[in-house]
């Protein structure tokens, strides 16, 4: 059936790896669910008028007192858990993806230039990266969040929350990309095809982007997937600590924070369901990243 696929090509390896297939399936399912949340979610968790306190603290449908209208139960405000999670995943994914893309562009750009030019430029960039690396990601994010709170007026702050959060996460992740891009560039720039381009007198920018970048994209792709998972986790952590998104537009982290209050009071679903959801999402993305790493490791092919 799959005879048309070339052996040992990435896609062949993919259909022969059950863990990668399951991970890809779960990731795709969650992304689709988040993307089409307004269409498939039973209710809109942002619309305060759509839920009533009367429906508060309902357990999932398989437990006594559960109602079929709320398959996974409701929180104390009467919000449907499924809807909250789908909308929350939407926010988490948007923030995670955007942060990852910003970190990639920033990190790869700086790393490529540092590796290509070397010398003092390289030293400065990499020392900045070292300082960045010495600060835990959460601390960086807290710092940026604090600065934003300090300088922005209160009205704008509420609207800027997502932007500030994204930037904070991106700034704590770019170092990974910069280091990998720099190391790979060091290897590539001594190869003869790069020398040929230099002899020809090609512009350094062209050599970096057209000659070197396509050759170092493999390891970067791996980091992109792994860091996507990190970005989502980081967002969840910040929201959990209360410096992320507010309770009226909850992301996964915010949902978990809300659920914490009910951890010991018997309403387990408010905490556990978003937590399990987050774990599944992050693990699935990580498994995909591992699979990509295997593909780009020529020793295993």
């Amino acid at each position, binding site marked *: 059936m799959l005879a048309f696929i070339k052996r040992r090509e990435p896609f062949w390896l993919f259909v022969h790896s059950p863990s990668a297939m399951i991970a890809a399936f779960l990731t795709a399912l969650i992304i689709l669910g988040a993307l089409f949340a307004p269409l498939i979610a039973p209710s809109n968790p942002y619309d305060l008028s759509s839920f009533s306190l009367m429906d508060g603290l309902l357990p999932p449908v398989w437990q006594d007192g559960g109602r079929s209208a709320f398959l996974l139960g409701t929180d104390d405000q009467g919000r449907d858990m499924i809807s909250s999670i789908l909308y929350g995943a939407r926010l988490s994914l948007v923030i995670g993806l955007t942060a990852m893309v910003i970190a990639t562009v920033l990190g790869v750009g700086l790393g490529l230039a540092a590796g290509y030019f070397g010398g003092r430029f390289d030293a400065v960039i990499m020392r900045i990266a070292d300082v960045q690396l010495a600060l835990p990601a959460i601390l960086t994010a807290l710092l940026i969040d604090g600065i934003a709170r300090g300088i922005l007026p209160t009205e704008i702050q509420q609207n800027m929350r997502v932007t500030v959060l994204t930037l904070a996460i991106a700034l704590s992740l770019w170092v990974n990309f910069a280091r990998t891009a720099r190391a790979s560039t060091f290897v590539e720039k001594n190869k003869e095809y790069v*020398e040929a381009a230099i002899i*020809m*007198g090609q512009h350094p920018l062209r050599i970096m982007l057209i000659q070197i970048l396509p050759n170092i994209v493999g390891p970067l792709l791996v980091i992109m997937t792994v860091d996507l998972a990190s970005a989502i986790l980081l967002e969840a952590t910040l929201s959990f600590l209360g410096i992320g998104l507010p309770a009226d537009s909850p992301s996964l982290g915010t949902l978990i924070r809300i659920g914490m209050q009910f951890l010991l009071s018997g309403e387990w679903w408010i905490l556990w369901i978003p937590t399990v959801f987050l774990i599944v999402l992050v693990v699935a993305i990580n498994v995909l990243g591992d699979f990509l790493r295997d593909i780009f490791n020529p020793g295993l092919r």
Partner: protein
Amino acid sequence: MLTVQDLTVRFPSRFGDFTAIKGVSLSVAPGEIHGLVGESGAGKSTIGAAVIGLLQSPGYVAEGSMTLQDTDLRTLSTDQAHKMRGKRISMIFQDPQTSLNPLMTVQDQLVETIQAHEDISKTQARKRAIDLLEEIGIKNAETRIRAYPHQFSGGMRQRVVIALALCTDPDLIIADEPTTALDVAVQSQVLGLIRRLADTRQIGFLLITHDIGVIAQIADRVTVLRHGIVMETGKTAQVLGKPKNPYTVDLMKAVPPLDRRLDRFLVPGEDRKSDTDRDQAKGDKAEKWLLAGQKDPATGLAINDLSVRFVGERTSLWRKPKPFIALNNVSLDVRPGTIMGLVGESGSGKSTLAKAITGLVKPALGTIRLQDLDLPHGRDRGRHHPSRRLIQMVFQDPFSSLNARHRIGYILGEPLLHYGFEPDAKLRRNLVADMLELVGLTPDAIDKYPHQFSGGQRQRIAVARTLLARPKFLICDEPTSALDVSIQAQILNLLKDLQATFGLTILFISHNLAVVRQMADDVTVLRYGKVVETGKVEDVFERPRAEYTKELLALTPVTPSDW
């Protein structure tokens, strides 16, 4: 002693078995050096691995028998095979850099090996190790034995590897390309040592190599392999001197002789008739386009008192590190329209000179002039300096000189676009396709990626790329040292043809004297960054003046012409 009968080795795969070795028979007598020669992929190393029982999984011996004296090597259990390895069969590998453990002293490695096979005390083992090192020509063995591998030079390190193979007193030693990584002077010493060991200790050697000169110099008998099948076997002088098999005949014709110059190599599958046809019909447009750009007369290159220094190793925290002098007052004159050969051992500064000419390395002193054009040094030469187009380079490694992520059409289109020759994408593509034909490839190569080509084809593509810049001066840095002899002959023919047609001036860098003899009009010999001798190629090869040149010529393994 070693008898291999009808050996067949298979590598199973999803699409049926791949037969790497088909019905190979050979034998090695005590004290005999049996050469195993063939081009890459012929299965030389696979035979060696099968004999010593180290075939890479999933390869397996499908048929045939291998016996060492009365021991059947095929029926040995894993444990028995392990004991037999080292004790009765040893191996010498190609690269002495990697076949010794860098973290253990030579003494530890030798003693460990001796004690693994014999129940003797450490002091006795050590004494034996010292005797061995002395026997294979390491002076002060008593103290040198405590050194680490990196404290030995390349040739000495290969001697240590030989001592390691020898220390258990084996009957048979498999030497897999033992001198390929070494310079000629060291190579000749190591080969002499192998010959001496075969004669004095009656050890049988299975000498695996692609270098026919090496075989001619020391092997008693030779087996020629191709695609895992024996083409010809017999006494060395008979097989190499009067080859019967057509493949061996072709192979011998492709070997460049040191003592005379051939006009062209006769290459199997490329007879001269079809070659001239190609020049007329195919690649016509590309040839016209190139000739249109060659209107002005040929260009020479003059180098005057060029010195290149690199930052040396720091010996003290306070003192400035002493510079390492890579080139020392080198002067060179490449006459317009000729080929200048540049020879020397590794570390003599050949490649540094090429890099100085192309501006990749900045010389400390001296001048480089391309005809009437002064070439600024290093980064002082701007990106738009006219020499960026006029000087082009063919690199040694065809695997890394083409960007693996771009299609051939794109790679070859780059110079056309960059120098503004052909802004129109369609015309550019036509010209590239035609240029591919000019260098002997089919135009459908244009949409493929570099990894879809063999080394020789890639080198043709690399040559095509340089031509598309309409260069006047070409630097070829070891353009054929990564290629098999028959492929080497094709590439050398191609370069000769192109040089004659377009009046190019070429600096041809090689460590292989025979190749330089075939290609060059003039030759310069470099050693430790200094010019030792320079002159017309016939003069230097037939009447060398410098001692060093004489030595190089004498030590280069050649096939005797009186066979």
